[in-house]
């Protein structure tokens, strides 16, 4: 952002005070409202699109392929494209790693749902396209000074896309231990199965709330630390002046790894980067524990609503 020194200083002062005031008037544990839609790409197994009011947008497509088993870690491939930045920039591949690892670690049923037979598995290709609000202001392919950290937004998108992913129904024998057999599928799209089964009956849902909780894709939350205050889902201005960034994962009712410190300031100026206190980390985890369940519930509502574009106001 092209804020002047005094503007940044004003922002820092107001965020570091005892009763912090965020520039957009949000509470410190309040996320930005998103507009989301799912299943709009006809050629992919699952897709989602999330837009923020500042104009940034993330589009995610999930495709599947039948592969012969090698290692479980190979079953998910994630590709991240940000505006038209070079894809070998360090921070882009770092974000890819964080997202991919969080998926691999917390995948539902330890990949049981991708298992077709004893030999064959589904492999998922997750393609992420992130369009930032400031892509026009950029001059070169390596200029990253206007980029906000998109991890949290992308993970919401992946959550929605995975929840809307449908995989073809296997009709051949699932046990091919003795006789090798190529898997065959039902070619009717209406008989496909959801990767993350949705509870159609409310009663079932009420009966086993724990099992329903156990299968959700992971979410990532980005926190910005300013002195003793923590802010969830920081806007680009807040990211720029924060002492330190923190990414915390959440899955199925629990805080999970990655829990890492982040450099939120892509522009490279380090005058505001100071580090955080140990207590901040604990507070951050508590904040996520309080907020995350609401977020995932909100995202589930979007999945239930289906194709309709839903505007989620700042309900979190």
């Amino acid at each position: 952002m092209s804020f002047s020194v005094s503007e940044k200083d004003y922002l820092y002062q107001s965020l570091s005070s005892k009763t912090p005031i965020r520039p957009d008037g949000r509470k410190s544990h309040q996320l930005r409202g998103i507009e989301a839609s799912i299943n709009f790409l006809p050629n992919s197994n699952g897709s989602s699109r999330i837009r923020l009011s500042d104009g940034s947008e993330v589009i995610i497509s999930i495709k599947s392929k039948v592969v012969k088993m090698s290692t479980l870690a190979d079953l998910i491939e994630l590709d991240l494209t940000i505006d038209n930045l070079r894809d070998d920039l360090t921070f882009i591949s770092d974000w890819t790693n964080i997202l991919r690892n969080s998926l691999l670690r917390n995948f539902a049923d330890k990949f049981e749902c991708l298992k077709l037979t004893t030999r064959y598995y589904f492999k998922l290709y997750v393609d992420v396209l992130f369009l930032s609000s400031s892509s026009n202001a950029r001059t070169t392919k390596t200029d990253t000074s206007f980029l906000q950290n998109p991890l949290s937004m992308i993970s919401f998108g992946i959550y929605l896309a995975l929840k809307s992913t449908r995989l073809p129904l296997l009709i051949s024998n699932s046990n091919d231990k003795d006789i090798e057999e190529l898997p065959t599928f039902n070619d009717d799209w209406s008989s496909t199965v959801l990767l993350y089964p949705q509870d159609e009956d409310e009663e079932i849902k009420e009966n086993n709330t724990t099992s329903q909780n156990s299968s959700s894709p992971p979410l990532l939350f980005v926190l910005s630390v300013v002195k003793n205050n923590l802010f969830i889902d920081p806007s680009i201005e807040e990211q720029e002046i924060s002492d330190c960034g923190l990414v915390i994962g959440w899955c199925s009712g629990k805080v999970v790894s990655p829990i890492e410190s982040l450099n939120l300031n892509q522009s490279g100026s380090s005058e505001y980067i100071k580090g955080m206190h140990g207590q901040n980390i604990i507070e951050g985890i508590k904040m996520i524990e309080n907020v995350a369940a609401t977020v995932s519930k909100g995202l589930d509502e979007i999945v239930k609503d289906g194709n309709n574009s839903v505007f989620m106001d700042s309900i979190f």
Partner: protein
Amino acid sequence: MSDRRRITGPESALPLVFAPTPNNQSTTKSPQEKTNSGIRNFFIKTGIVSNCNGSCFLEVDNTTIIVSVYGAKPIRGSSVTSASFSVMTKVSNNLEELSNFTSSDLSHSKEEKEEQKLAKEDEYVTTNQIGKTQLSLVEQKLSTYIQTAFLPSILLEKYPKSSIEVFINILTNDSHTNSSLLSLITWCANCTSLALVDSGIELKDMVSTGIAKLTDDQTVVIDPSYSNEGRKTVGGQEVRAVASYMSVTDTVVGLMIESEEGVNGEMIEKVIDGCNTMAREIRSNMNGFLVSTM
């Protein structure tokens, strides 16, 4: 009464002490005594690379690391008010298996594995030939962590229009024993800290890094070594953490926590305390080393 055949001094005599002979070995610190807190002995030596501004060599068990710091060097045609700081990591031997997701191998023979490995190497070579500076996953993670952790400590605004580059070279590492990425990060960070001091670049404070793990029975193990780290037991609740500290401001500048299961605030608090203990121990060791080399 007394023994007259021997020339003995008076009872209060002190043994004769010679001044230490100055030689090149004086910069070398002998492996330190194992401390009670259970940090492994490590060997450090600074200033061993002659064509850079600062360097440090660190050895712990079978891991050897060289960090060299270049800078602050002027960059052409740029008028930025503070220096740019970049970190590059190179792992000399193949550490691909170190990727922090440990997958259980499902039914495939050794030959298949080797084939895959070969294919992977081929891939690596081809990407290199194109001229891309493609770092492996491990190298990537290491670089980012070190960069994030050291950004707050360097007074970059003192060096306008210049760049500071850190090259981390991991010469050897126990790839057989599945040493974790986290322990590698810890020692690389500590080595980088000393290399930066050696380079004379102005710092706010030295960064010291500690590693700890919280086991099933809620005990904190500081600096878990390869032997007791090993492969994680399936279903075992284990939290591993690396944290970097600047002790002047008492702040955490780098943090990475890994666990297979969910965690809560209490567990994190315990494991971070462990990291802090180790970081302080490391810091006092480094201080001692720096004083002895003055």
